[in-house]
Protein backbone atom coordinates (compact mmCIF):
# COMPACT_ATOMS: atom_id res chain seq x y z
CA UNK A 1 0.00 0.00 0.00
CA UNK A 2 2.64 2.31 1.12
CA UNK A 3 4.64 1.47 -1.97
CA UNK A 4 1.73 2.17 -4.31
CA UNK A 5 1.07 5.52 -2.73
CA UNK A 6 4.67 6.36 -3.15
CA UNK A 7 5.00 5.15 -6.69
CA UNK A 8 2.09 7.11 -8.07
CA UNK A 9 3.54 10.59 -7.81
CA UNK A 10 6.88 9.14 -8.78
CA UNK A 11 5.42 7.67 -11.94
CA UNK A 12 3.91 11.02 -12.62
CA UNK A 13 7.27 12.70 -12.25
CA UNK A 14 8.91 10.14 -14.51
CA UNK A 15 6.24 10.63 -17.13
CA UNK A 16 6.65 14.37 -16.85
CA UNK A 17 10.41 14.12 -17.17
CA UNK A 18 10.13 11.77 -20.10
CA UNK A 19 7.79 14.17 -21.82
CA UNK A 20 10.17 17.00 -21.10
CA UNK A 21 13.15 15.11 -22.49
CA UNK A 22 11.20 14.04 -25.54
CA UNK A 23 9.89 17.47 -26.30
CA UNK A 24 13.34 18.87 -25.71
CA UNK A 25 14.86 16.30 -28.05
CA UNK A 26 12.18 17.04 -30.56
CA UNK A 27 12.84 20.75 -30.39
CA UNK A 28 16.54 20.11 -30.69
CA UNK A 29 16.30 17.83 -33.67
CA UNK A 30 16.08 20.26 -36.54
CA UNK A 31 14.30 19.47 -39.75
CA UNK A 32 16.78 18.80 -42.56
CA UNK A 33 16.27 22.22 -44.10
CA UNK A 34 16.96 24.00 -40.81
CA UNK A 35 19.99 21.81 -40.51
CA UNK A 36 21.29 22.80 -43.92
CA UNK A 37 20.60 26.46 -43.24
CA UNK A 38 22.29 26.49 -39.84
CA UNK A 39 25.31 24.51 -40.91
CA UNK A 40 25.81 26.53 -44.07
CA UNK A 41 25.99 29.66 -41.96
CA UNK A 42 28.46 28.06 -39.54
CA UNK A 43 30.60 26.73 -42.33
CA UNK A 44 30.90 29.98 -44.27
CA UNK A 45 31.75 31.88 -41.10
CA UNK A 46 34.42 29.31 -40.19
CA UNK A 47 36.08 29.72 -43.60
CA UNK A 48 35.81 33.51 -43.45
CA UNK A 49 37.38 33.81 -40.02
CA UNK A 50 40.21 31.30 -40.57
CA UNK A 51 42.78 32.23 -43.25
CA UNK A 52 44.15 28.67 -43.15
CA UNK A 53 40.86 27.36 -44.47
CA UNK A 54 41.09 29.79 -47.39
CA UNK A 55 44.41 28.41 -48.45
CA UNK A 56 43.86 25.43 -50.79
CA UNK A 57 47.03 23.49 -49.91
CA UNK A 58 46.58 23.75 -46.15
CA UNK A 59 46.67 20.66 -43.92
CA UNK A 60 44.06 22.24 -41.74
CA UNK A 61 41.49 21.84 -44.52
CA UNK A 62 41.69 18.07 -44.53
CA UNK A 63 41.38 17.92 -40.72
CA UNK A 64 38.42 20.24 -40.90
CA UNK A 65 36.76 18.18 -43.61
CA UNK A 66 37.38 14.88 -41.81
CA UNK A 67 35.94 16.21 -38.59
CA UNK A 68 33.00 18.28 -39.77
CA UNK A 69 31.95 17.11 -43.19
CA UNK A 70 32.77 13.45 -43.70
CA UNK A 71 30.49 12.31 -40.81
CA UNK A 72 27.54 14.01 -42.52
CA UNK A 73 27.87 11.92 -45.69
CA UNK A 74 26.54 8.44 -46.26
CA UNK A 75 29.35 7.20 -48.50
CA UNK A 76 28.00 3.67 -48.58
CA UNK A 77 24.77 4.84 -50.14
CA UNK A 78 26.59 7.16 -52.54
CA UNK A 79 28.69 4.20 -53.65
CA UNK A 80 25.61 2.01 -54.03
CA UNK A 81 23.97 4.58 -56.29
CA UNK A 82 27.14 4.94 -58.36
CA UNK A 83 27.44 1.16 -58.72
CA UNK A 84 23.78 0.41 -59.42
CA UNK A 85 23.28 -3.25 -60.32
CA UNK A 86 26.98 -3.99 -59.95
CA UNK A 87 26.78 -3.44 -56.18
CA UNK A 88 25.36 -6.94 -55.78
CA UNK A 89 28.25 -8.42 -57.78
CA UNK A 90 30.77 -7.34 -55.15
CA UNK A 91 31.22 -9.43 -52.01
CA UNK A 92 30.97 -7.67 -48.61
CA UNK A 93 34.75 -7.28 -48.31
CA UNK A 94 34.93 -5.77 -51.81
CA UNK A 95 31.98 -3.49 -51.09
CA UNK A 96 33.76 -2.20 -48.01
CA UNK A 97 36.90 -1.57 -50.02
CA UNK A 98 35.06 0.26 -52.79
CA UNK A 99 33.26 2.50 -50.28
CA UNK A 100 36.57 3.28 -48.55
CA UNK A 101 38.42 4.13 -51.77
CA UNK A 102 35.56 6.05 -53.35
CA UNK A 103 35.01 8.17 -50.24
CA UNK A 104 38.74 8.86 -50.17
CA UNK A 105 38.61 9.99 -53.81
CA UNK A 106 35.60 12.26 -53.27
CA UNK A 107 36.96 13.75 -50.04
CA UNK A 108 40.42 14.35 -51.46
CA UNK A 109 39.28 15.98 -54.70
CA UNK A 110 36.66 18.23 -53.25
CA UNK A 111 38.22 19.30 -49.95
CA UNK A 112 40.19 22.14 -51.43
CA UNK A 113 37.06 23.69 -52.86
CA UNK A 114 35.97 24.88 -49.41
CA UNK A 115 38.43 27.75 -49.75
CA UNK A 116 36.08 29.39 -52.28
CA UNK A 117 33.32 29.58 -49.66
CA UNK A 118 34.80 32.82 -48.53
CA UNK A 119 32.76 34.72 -51.11
CA UNK A 120 29.67 32.54 -51.25
CA UNK A 121 26.44 32.09 -49.34
CA UNK A 122 23.85 29.36 -49.28
CA UNK A 123 20.14 30.05 -49.29
CA UNK A 124 17.71 27.24 -48.53
CA UNK A 125 14.83 27.48 -51.00
CA UNK A 126 12.54 24.55 -50.29
CA UNK A 127 12.39 20.93 -49.23
CA UNK A 128 10.92 18.04 -51.14
CA UNK A 129 9.88 15.12 -48.94
CA UNK A 130 10.49 11.81 -50.70
CA UNK A 131 9.54 9.72 -47.64
CA UNK A 132 8.45 11.46 -44.43
CA UNK A 133 11.16 11.58 -41.75
CA UNK A 134 13.32 9.27 -43.87
CA UNK A 135 14.33 10.72 -47.23
CA UNK A 136 14.24 14.38 -48.25
CA UNK A 137 15.80 16.69 -50.80
CA UNK A 138 16.77 20.16 -49.58
CA UNK A 139 16.96 22.63 -52.45
CA UNK A 140 19.42 25.46 -52.02
CA UNK A 141 20.91 28.23 -54.02
CA UNK A 142 24.51 29.27 -53.87
CA UNK A 143 24.88 32.99 -54.26
CA UNK A 144 27.87 35.25 -54.64
CA UNK A 145 28.77 34.34 -58.22
CA UNK A 146 27.53 36.13 -61.32
CA UNK A 147 24.78 33.52 -61.63
CA UNK A 148 23.16 31.75 -58.68
CA UNK A 149 23.75 28.00 -58.73
CA UNK A 150 21.05 25.54 -57.71
CA UNK A 151 22.35 22.83 -55.42
CA UNK A 152 20.13 20.07 -54.06
CA UNK A 153 21.08 17.82 -51.17
CA UNK A 154 19.44 14.44 -50.82
CA UNK A 155 19.45 13.29 -47.22
CA UNK A 156 18.49 10.06 -45.57
CA UNK A 157 17.63 9.60 -41.91
CA UNK A 158 19.50 6.59 -40.54
CA UNK A 159 21.13 5.44 -37.32
CA UNK A 160 23.66 8.25 -37.61
CA UNK A 161 21.00 10.94 -38.05
CA UNK A 162 20.43 12.79 -41.31
CA UNK A 163 23.20 12.21 -43.81
CA UNK A 164 23.74 13.31 -47.40
CA UNK A 165 23.62 10.60 -50.05
CA UNK A 166 23.61 12.72 -53.19
CA UNK A 167 24.34 16.24 -54.30
CA UNK A 168 22.96 17.72 -57.51
CA UNK A 169 24.35 20.84 -59.09
CA UNK A 170 21.91 22.45 -61.50
CA UNK A 171 20.13 19.12 -61.56
CA UNK A 172 23.23 17.07 -62.37
CA UNK A 173 23.68 14.30 -59.83
CA UNK A 174 27.15 13.65 -58.45
CA UNK A 175 26.44 10.02 -57.58
CA UNK A 176 24.97 9.36 -61.03
CA UNK A 177 27.96 11.04 -62.65
CA UNK A 178 30.09 8.06 -61.63
CA UNK A 179 27.65 5.43 -62.85
CA UNK A 180 28.96 5.03 -66.39
CA UNK A 181 32.57 5.00 -65.25
CA UNK A 182 31.94 2.34 -62.62
CA UNK A 183 29.83 0.25 -64.99
CA UNK A 184 32.47 0.49 -67.71
CA UNK A 185 35.27 -0.58 -65.40
CA UNK A 186 33.27 -3.50 -63.98
CA UNK A 187 32.30 -4.66 -67.47
CA UNK A 188 35.91 -4.43 -68.61
CA UNK A 189 37.81 -5.93 -65.71
CA UNK A 190 35.34 -6.92 -63.01
CA UNK A 191 34.81 -5.59 -59.51
CA UNK A 192 38.51 -6.06 -58.75
CA UNK A 193 39.33 -3.89 -61.78
CA UNK A 194 37.19 -1.10 -60.34
CA UNK A 195 38.93 -1.39 -56.98
CA UNK A 196 42.33 -1.27 -58.68
CA UNK A 197 41.35 1.81 -60.68
CA UNK A 198 40.13 3.60 -57.53
CA UNK A 199 43.29 2.70 -55.65
CA UNK A 200 45.46 3.85 -58.51
CA UNK A 201 43.60 7.16 -58.66
CA UNK A 202 44.12 7.59 -54.92
CA UNK A 203 47.81 7.03 -55.43
CA UNK A 204 47.96 3.69 -53.59
Amino acid at each position, binding site marked *: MCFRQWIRPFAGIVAFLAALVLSH*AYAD*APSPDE*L*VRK*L*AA*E*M*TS*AVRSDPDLQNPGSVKISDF*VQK*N*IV*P*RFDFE*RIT*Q*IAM*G*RNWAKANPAEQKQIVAEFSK*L*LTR*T*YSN*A*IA*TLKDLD*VEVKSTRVVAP*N*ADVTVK*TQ*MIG*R*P*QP*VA*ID*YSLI*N*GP*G*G*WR*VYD*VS*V*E*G*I*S*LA*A*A*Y*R*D*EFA*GLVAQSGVSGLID*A*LKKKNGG
Partner: protein
Amino acid sequence: MKRTFASLFILAVIAPSLAFATPVKKMKPNVAPLPIEEAAEPAPPNDLFEPVNRATFALNDGIDALIVNPLVAVWNGIVPSFVRTGVGNFFNNLDDIYVGANHLLQGNGSRAAVDFQRVAVNTTIGIVGLVDVGAKMGLNKVDGDFGQTLGVWGVPTGPYLILPLIGPSTVRETAGRTVRIATDPRTYMDAVPSYSLMGLEYLQTRADAKANEGLIAASSLDRYVFVRNLYLQKRSLMVKAGLEASKSRQAAK
Protein backbone atom coordinates in the same frame (compact mmCIF):
# COMPACT_ATOMS: atom_id res chain seq x y z
CA MET B 1 27.91 24.72 -72.16
CA LYS B 2 31.36 25.10 -70.73
CA ARG B 3 30.03 27.91 -68.58
CA THR B 4 27.67 25.53 -66.94
CA PHE B 5 30.43 23.10 -66.22
CA ALA B 6 32.06 26.10 -64.73
CA SER B 7 29.69 26.32 -61.84
CA LEU B 8 29.46 22.64 -61.64
CA PHE B 9 31.90 20.61 -59.78
CA ILE B 10 33.54 23.10 -57.55
CA LEU B 11 30.22 23.92 -56.10
CA ALA B 12 29.04 20.38 -55.95
CA VAL B 13 31.50 19.80 -53.32
CA ILE B 14 31.61 22.95 -51.42
CA ALA B 15 28.02 22.94 -50.84
CA PRO B 16 27.84 19.70 -48.97
CA SER B 17 30.69 20.86 -46.90
CA LEU B 18 28.82 24.01 -46.17
CA ALA B 19 25.83 22.21 -45.16
CA PHE B 20 27.17 19.77 -42.69
CA ALA B 21 29.90 21.43 -40.80
CA THR B 22 28.96 20.34 -37.32
CA PRO B 23 27.61 17.12 -35.93
CA VAL B 24 23.92 17.40 -35.36
CA LYS B 25 21.55 15.73 -32.95
CA LYS B 26 19.76 12.88 -34.55
CA MET B 27 16.13 12.68 -35.31
CA LYS B 28 14.26 9.47 -34.78
CA PRO B 29 16.11 7.10 -37.09
CA ASN B 30 14.13 4.95 -39.44
CA VAL B 31 14.58 1.23 -39.10
CA ALA B 32 16.44 0.29 -42.26
CA PRO B 33 17.88 2.33 -45.09
CA LEU B 34 15.47 2.70 -47.96
CA PRO B 35 16.25 0.44 -50.89
CA ILE B 36 17.83 2.01 -53.93
CA GLU B 37 15.32 1.57 -56.70
CA GLU B 38 16.75 -0.39 -59.57
CA ALA B 39 14.14 1.15 -61.82
CA ALA B 40 15.98 4.44 -61.65
CA GLU B 41 18.92 2.87 -63.46
CA PRO B 42 19.27 4.73 -66.75
CA ALA B 43 19.91 3.14 -70.10
CA PRO B 44 23.58 3.05 -71.12
CA PRO B 45 24.57 6.08 -73.20
CA ASN B 46 24.44 5.92 -76.98
CA ASP B 47 28.09 6.16 -77.96
CA LEU B 48 28.15 4.49 -81.34
CA PHE B 49 31.33 6.27 -82.42
CA GLU B 50 33.27 5.74 -79.20
CA PRO B 51 36.60 4.78 -80.83
CA VAL B 52 36.55 7.85 -83.10
CA ASN B 53 35.31 10.02 -80.23
CA ARG B 54 38.09 8.87 -77.96
CA ALA B 55 40.63 9.70 -80.67
CA THR B 56 39.15 13.20 -81.11
CA PHE B 57 39.06 13.60 -77.32
CA ALA B 58 42.79 12.83 -77.20
CA LEU B 59 43.38 15.20 -80.13
CA ASN B 60 41.58 17.98 -78.25
CA ASP B 61 43.72 17.29 -75.18
CA GLY B 62 46.78 17.66 -77.38
CA ILE B 63 45.56 20.96 -78.84
CA ASP B 64 44.76 22.15 -75.32
CA ALA B 65 48.22 21.33 -74.04
CA LEU B 66 49.98 22.89 -77.02
CA ILE B 67 47.88 25.94 -77.80
CA VAL B 68 44.80 26.56 -75.68
CA ASN B 69 46.26 26.21 -72.18
CA PRO B 70 49.18 28.59 -72.82
CA LEU B 71 46.78 31.14 -74.34
CA VAL B 72 44.41 30.78 -71.38
CA ALA B 73 47.34 31.24 -69.00
CA VAL B 74 48.34 34.46 -70.78
CA TRP B 75 44.73 35.65 -70.89
CA ASN B 76 44.19 35.00 -67.16
CA GLY B 77 47.65 36.30 -66.32
CA ILE B 78 47.72 39.67 -68.05
CA VAL B 79 44.07 40.64 -68.53
CA PRO B 80 42.47 42.15 -65.41
CA SER B 81 39.52 40.19 -64.11
CA PHE B 82 36.97 42.97 -64.69
CA VAL B 83 37.91 42.97 -68.38
CA ARG B 84 37.49 39.21 -68.55
CA THR B 85 34.09 39.49 -66.85
CA GLY B 86 33.13 42.23 -69.31
CA VAL B 87 34.13 40.09 -72.28
CA GLY B 88 32.16 37.17 -70.87
CA ASN B 89 29.11 39.39 -70.34
CA PHE B 90 29.40 40.82 -73.85
CA PHE B 91 29.20 37.39 -75.48
CA ASN B 92 26.52 36.26 -73.02
CA ASN B 93 24.45 39.23 -74.12
CA LEU B 94 24.71 38.23 -77.78
CA ASP B 95 23.87 34.67 -76.76
CA ASP B 96 20.72 35.86 -74.96
CA ILE B 97 19.25 36.87 -78.34
CA TYR B 98 19.56 33.24 -79.42
CA VAL B 99 18.34 31.97 -76.07
CA GLY B 100 15.22 34.14 -76.38
CA ALA B 101 14.61 33.10 -79.98
CA ASN B 102 14.83 29.45 -78.98
CA HIS B 103 12.45 29.89 -76.07
CA LEU B 104 10.00 31.38 -78.58
CA LEU B 105 10.47 28.38 -80.88
CA GLN B 106 9.80 26.13 -77.88
CA GLY B 107 6.59 28.05 -77.25
CA ASN B 108 7.93 29.44 -73.98
CA GLY B 109 6.97 33.07 -74.48
CA SER B 110 7.25 34.11 -70.85
CA ARG B 111 10.86 32.98 -70.58
CA ALA B 112 11.64 34.53 -74.00
CA ALA B 113 10.28 37.82 -72.65
CA VAL B 114 12.78 37.68 -69.78
CA ASP B 115 15.63 36.84 -72.20
CA PHE B 116 14.77 39.81 -74.42
CA GLN B 117 14.39 42.13 -71.41
CA ARG B 118 17.89 41.09 -70.42
CA VAL B 119 19.17 41.97 -73.89
CA ALA B 120 17.36 45.33 -73.81
CA VAL B 121 18.66 46.28 -70.36
CA ASN B 122 22.18 44.94 -70.81
CA THR B 123 22.68 46.46 -74.27
CA THR B 124 21.65 49.93 -73.09
CA ILE B 125 22.30 50.47 -69.37
CA GLY B 126 24.83 47.65 -69.40
CA ILE B 127 26.89 49.34 -72.15
CA VAL B 128 26.62 46.97 -75.12
CA GLY B 129 26.42 44.02 -72.78
CA LEU B 130 29.65 44.57 -70.86
CA VAL B 131 27.80 44.75 -67.55
CA ASP B 132 25.12 42.24 -66.62
CA VAL B 133 22.66 44.75 -65.17
CA GLY B 134 19.82 42.32 -65.83
CA ALA B 135 21.12 39.81 -63.30
CA LYS B 136 21.26 42.55 -60.66
CA MET B 137 17.61 43.29 -61.40
CA GLY B 138 16.72 39.66 -60.79
CA LEU B 139 16.57 38.70 -64.47
CA ASN B 140 18.88 35.71 -64.42
CA LYS B 141 20.44 34.19 -67.49
CA VAL B 142 19.43 30.69 -68.40
CA ASP B 143 20.73 28.30 -71.05
CA GLY B 144 18.89 27.73 -74.27
CA ASP B 145 19.89 26.75 -77.77
CA PHE B 146 18.62 25.17 -80.95
CA GLY B 147 19.74 21.68 -79.94
CA GLN B 148 17.42 21.99 -76.94
CA THR B 149 14.62 23.29 -79.18
CA LEU B 150 15.01 20.24 -81.42
CA GLY B 151 14.81 18.07 -78.30
CA VAL B 152 11.61 19.81 -77.18
CA TRP B 153 10.20 19.17 -80.65
CA GLY B 154 10.84 15.48 -80.14
CA VAL B 155 14.08 14.97 -82.08
CA PRO B 156 16.17 12.26 -80.33
CA THR B 157 19.77 13.09 -79.36
CA GLY B 158 21.36 10.51 -81.60
CA PRO B 159 24.83 9.18 -80.86
CA TYR B 160 27.29 11.09 -78.70
CA LEU B 161 29.99 13.00 -80.58
CA ILE B 162 33.26 14.67 -79.70
CA LEU B 163 33.88 17.61 -82.03
CA PRO B 164 37.40 18.87 -82.71
CA LEU B 165 38.18 21.95 -80.55
CA ILE B 166 34.60 22.17 -79.27
CA GLY B 167 34.35 18.93 -77.36
CA PRO B 168 31.21 17.06 -76.20
CA SER B 169 28.17 17.09 -78.46
CA THR B 170 25.61 14.76 -80.00
CA VAL B 171 24.26 14.45 -83.51
CA ARG B 172 21.24 16.60 -82.53
CA GLU B 173 23.35 19.20 -80.73
CA THR B 174 25.68 19.40 -83.72
CA ALA B 175 22.71 20.12 -85.96
CA GLY B 176 21.65 22.84 -83.53
CA ARG B 177 25.12 24.29 -83.52
CA THR B 178 25.21 24.34 -87.32
CA VAL B 179 22.01 26.39 -87.40
CA ARG B 180 23.47 28.74 -84.82
CA ILE B 181 26.61 29.27 -86.89
CA ALA B 182 24.57 29.82 -90.04
CA THR B 183 22.53 32.54 -88.31
CA ASP B 184 25.49 34.19 -86.57
CA PRO B 185 26.36 37.57 -88.11
CA ARG B 186 30.02 36.87 -87.44
CA THR B 187 29.90 34.11 -90.04
CA TYR B 188 29.29 36.76 -92.70
CA MET B 189 31.82 39.36 -91.56
CA ASP B 190 35.25 39.83 -93.09
CA ALA B 191 37.73 37.22 -92.03
CA VAL B 192 39.68 39.35 -89.55
CA PRO B 193 36.83 40.68 -87.37
CA SER B 194 34.99 37.40 -87.71
CA TYR B 195 37.84 35.20 -86.52
CA SER B 196 38.90 37.69 -83.84
CA LEU B 197 35.45 37.78 -82.29
CA MET B 198 35.01 34.04 -82.46
CA GLY B 199 38.50 33.47 -81.11
CA LEU B 200 37.93 35.84 -78.23
CA GLU B 201 34.69 34.15 -77.27
CA TYR B 202 36.36 30.76 -77.46
CA LEU B 203 39.25 31.90 -75.29
CA GLN B 204 36.94 33.44 -72.70
CA THR B 205 34.76 30.33 -72.56
CA ARG B 206 37.75 28.07 -72.13
CA ALA B 207 39.33 30.31 -69.50
CA ASP B 208 36.07 30.24 -67.59
CA ALA B 209 35.93 26.46 -67.63
CA LYS B 210 39.54 25.90 -66.58
CA ALA B 211 38.93 25.39 -62.86
CA ASN B 212 36.21 22.85 -63.49
CA GLU B 213 38.24 21.01 -66.07
CA GLY B 214 40.89 20.58 -63.41
CA LEU B 215 38.37 19.28 -60.94
CA ILE B 216 36.95 16.85 -63.49
CA ALA B 217 40.44 15.54 -64.24
CA ALA B 218 41.13 15.08 -60.53
CA SER B 219 37.89 13.32 -59.70
CA SER B 220 37.40 10.99 -62.65
CA LEU B 221 38.65 7.47 -63.25
CA ASP B 222 38.05 7.61 -67.00
CA ARG B 223 37.74 11.27 -67.90
CA TYR B 224 36.18 10.53 -71.29
CA VAL B 225 33.31 8.62 -69.68
CA PHE B 226 32.92 11.14 -66.85
CA VAL B 227 32.63 14.10 -69.25
CA ARG B 228 30.18 12.16 -71.42
CA ASN B 229 28.00 11.42 -68.42
CA LEU B 230 27.96 15.05 -67.26
CA TYR B 231 27.28 16.37 -70.75
CA LEU B 232 24.42 13.97 -71.44
CA GLN B 233 22.87 14.57 -67.99
CA LYS B 234 23.00 18.31 -68.67
CA ARG B 235 21.48 18.09 -72.15
CA SER B 236 18.66 15.83 -71.06
CA LEU B 237 17.87 18.18 -68.15
CA MET B 238 17.65 21.12 -70.56
CA VAL B 239 15.18 19.31 -72.79
CA LYS B 240 13.20 18.13 -69.77
CA ALA B 241 12.98 21.71 -68.49
CA GLY B 242 11.78 22.88 -71.93
CA LEU B 243 9.12 20.18 -72.05
CA GLU B 244 7.92 20.94 -68.52
CA ALA B 245 7.57 24.62 -69.41
CA SER B 246 5.41 23.76 -72.40
CA LYS B 247 3.35 21.24 -70.39
CA SER B 248 2.60 23.73 -67.63
CA ARG B 249 1.47 26.22 -70.27
CA GLN B 250 -0.91 23.70 -71.78
CA ALA B 251 -2.29 22.96 -68.32
CA ALA B 252 -2.85 26.66 -67.76
CA LYS B 253 -4.88 27.00 -70.96
